[in-house]
């Protein structure tokens, strides 16, 4: 268990290291120069050189990368001009564009992405498992078919398409819902939910179907297992068999999937956030890429990479927790 975690952590660290190095190299090779953007219109070459030096871009790329790594582990100092500001570890640097610490920017955006991901995940789990149970117990044939068809359609639907259609329907035609704008949960939970409802639905449409199918398949597989026959042979009531025995096996794959999907929503939220104009991590990234804001791009990449690594580890641990047969080594 400890060994497994150690390996996971080391492996995750390597992934993050490779990712950040990759981004640094790519941006170094890229033709764009963030100093030009900062310097603005009418920037002379002399001024540009000064600005570049002030932004720390005059150093060779490996020196920049080394400073970046140092910042993560020991923090770094930034010259503000007359004074020096210390950025404590883990310091991901400062945005070229807005001079804000990248960590602040990320912390600022995370609640939005998390709200989006968790809401959508919970919604799709509830609907998906519900539908899966209904169709898995084969009580309604037509429902079974419907779920089957929906999962195929869900797989074939890009989130931005669903998003557009939902906006068209609910915000423009029916005008039932406001055009989404992010309201922090702490400000007004009701408005928070109301505004996020459409993005949640857009994301859930796709996942609900997948979960329904998985639940249904898992349930059927689970009900066909030998130990269910044993339970029947020992007179355990069907209801109890379904809820206590079959469901657990059926939902097992969902446990790992949920963790990974959650990470997937956060990391691929770019599309949803762009679609609905939510100021999350994904939107931050798109803006940063356009502005060649390297520290922010690296920051977002590392954050999403970290979330993926954590989710995968969490999935492993969860799996081990719910399935006694699994031993983490």
């Amino acid at each position, binding site marked *: 268990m400890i060994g497994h975690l150690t390996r996971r952590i080391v492996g995750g660290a390597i992934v993050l290291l490779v990712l950040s190095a990759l981004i640094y190299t790519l941006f170094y090779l890229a033709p*764009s120069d963030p100093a*030009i953007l900062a310097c*603005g*219109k009418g*920037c002379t*070459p002399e001024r540009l050189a000064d600005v570049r030096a002030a932004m720390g871009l005059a150093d060779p790329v490996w020196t920049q990368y080394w400073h970046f790594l140092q910042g993560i582990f020991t923090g770094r100092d930034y010259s503000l*001009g*007359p004074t020096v500001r210390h950025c404590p570890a883990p310091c991901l640097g400062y945005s070229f564009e807005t001079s804000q610490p990248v960590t602040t920017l990320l912390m*600022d955006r995370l609640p939005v992405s998390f709200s989006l991901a968790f809401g959508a995940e919970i919604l799709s789990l509830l609907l998906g498992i519900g539908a899966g149970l209904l169709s898995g117990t084969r009580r309604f044939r037509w429902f079974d078919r419907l779920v089957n068809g929906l999962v195929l359609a869900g797989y074939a639907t890009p989130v931005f398409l669903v998003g557009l259609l939902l906006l068209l329907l609910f915000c423009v035609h029916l005008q039932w819902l*406001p055009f989404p704008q992010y309201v922090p949960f702490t400000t007004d939970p009701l408005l928070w939910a109301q505004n996020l409802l459409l993005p949640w639905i857009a994301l859930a449409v796709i996942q609900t179907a997948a979960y329904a199918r998985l639940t249904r398949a898992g349930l059927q597989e689970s009900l066909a297992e030998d130990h269910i026959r044993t339970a029947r042979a020992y007179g355990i009531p069907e209801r109890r068999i379904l809820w206590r025995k079959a469901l657990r096996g059926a939902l097992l794959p969902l446990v790992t999937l949920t963790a990974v999907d959650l990470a997937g929503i956060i990391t691929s939220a770019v599309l949803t956030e762009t679609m609905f104009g939510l100021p999350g991590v994904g939107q931050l990234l798109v803006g940063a890429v356009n502005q060649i804001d390297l520290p922010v791009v690296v920051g977002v990449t590392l954050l999403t990479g970290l979330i993926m690594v954590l989710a995968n580890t969490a999935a492993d641990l969860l799996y081990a927790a719910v399935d006694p047969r699994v031993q983490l080594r």
Partner: protein
Amino acid sequence: MRRFVPIVLTATVLLAGCQGGGGGDTTTSNAAFDPATCQGGTLTVLNQGGITHLDPARLYTSGGGNLPSLLFRTLTTRNRQPGDAGTKPAPDLATDLGTPSDGAKTWTYHLRDGIQFEDGTPITAADVKYGIERSFAPELPGGAPYLRDWLAGAADYQGPYKQPDGITSIETPDDKTIVFKLSKPEGDFPFLATATQFAPVPKAKDNGVDYEKHPISSGPYQVESYEPKKSLVLVRNTHWSTKIDELRYACPDRIEVTSGLDSAVINQRIVTGAGQDANAVTTDAVVGPEQLAQLGTGSELDKRVTRGEFPSTTYLAFNTKKAPFDNPKVREALSYAINRTSVVNALGGSAVVGPSTTFLPPQKALGYQQYDWFPAGDTGAPDKAKQVLAEAGLSNLSIELAHENDDSEGIGPKVASAIQEAFKQAGVTVKLNAIDTGTYRDITGKPATQPGLSLATWGADWPSGGPFLIPIFDGRQIITAGGNFNLAQYNDPEVNAEIDAINALTDPAAAAARWGALDAKLGKLALVLPLTHEKDVYLYGKNVKNAYADGWRGQLDVGRVSVK
């Protein structure tokens, strides 16, 4: 999605005003408005582009900007009047527009009495000087380049952090007097003095890059909270009063700015006007197709519109040092071939841009004179173009067109495709060359790397012909190392001499007439191919009063609106 110019405060974009060209209905609703009793309420500002830097050294705005001028008073500022009057500068911290001497090479200002920072400290000439010096620091990039160019001996100045001795060409003989020594005559200096770099900064409060977290206000409001590109909340500055500032009304008690919104969402919200949105205005979200459909139909929305014009031209730049654009016939032929309707549609339709046959946009203050030397009609004259090309012995012409790789600045793929198609009608094959937006100006601004044909925009930093024509046509402004705007690489001593002569004029009206004549003269040479000029249509909320298009930049003047 037209996110073009009016992103109020971003560093990359130029802002300037206009004569209020189309703004016929600007004053109609103001009959009952009384600036003495307008105070109260909270104004909501919904914007697309956020404020990236709230540091007066880094802001690139003219006329003091819209929101920044609520915090930063400058030596002069734009005259806050509807219509033509609004295109003139007016004294702000200074007692007058400045006294020129030495043939407009020296400008002297006196500060008015009673002016204070938000903490009650009196504002001195040294504070103004320090504010200007800060803008030279490479740690604080982004501001307009004119001061570095104009101030004598300031080109190599590295800012007060590295060179605390300061700039010698700015003198402060006493707390109330500040004198600028320029390297050449500049009659437009009162216009430049509206820039935020001319706002006072108390040296004791300067903490460099972090200063923007809470810049010390000299205006009617002070910062309550500020998040770059996201939000800005302003509350009253108790050390300001209408007694020391006649131009700003500062009606709302509180101003809440939200940025980073989609323009369609902003306009939708203003139209609906639910809750706080009834008190909403926008300074950068021009109306989209959906609202345009509702305008002019006699609906309630028609009363909630301001129309202005921003002096800006989108054009095709010919590199006359590169074949085949060194041949005037080619430039003429393309001028005949252009289909301006396609370009207008690509930029959002006739409500928000107009076709241009002149380089100067149609504003009186700039000295606009109508001309159309190569009439292409609404949709181009491909046959005429073919004929000109045939005369020059150039059929089957194949050229490359450089453009930005996104449409955010209005010189992206959409416009490029429209031009490609128009030239195709004239038998000219165009290959599109998309260049990353981040480096576009760098590549086009270096004669060594400048493509033969590129899309460009130019906006005036203040409503005068000088900043519009000088960087583009003054042969001495060709900067080979980079940052060049004279993309035609045109150098005619006669034109240069005329520019100098106009620059020395301190009467704006006289200067305007000569700028207009110069533009018409240059137009005959087809050095550039003008495409469109900006028009701005903004909506405002139900409760907003005294909303008129600011004559300098075509936007609502936030300094004078009321929500009471």
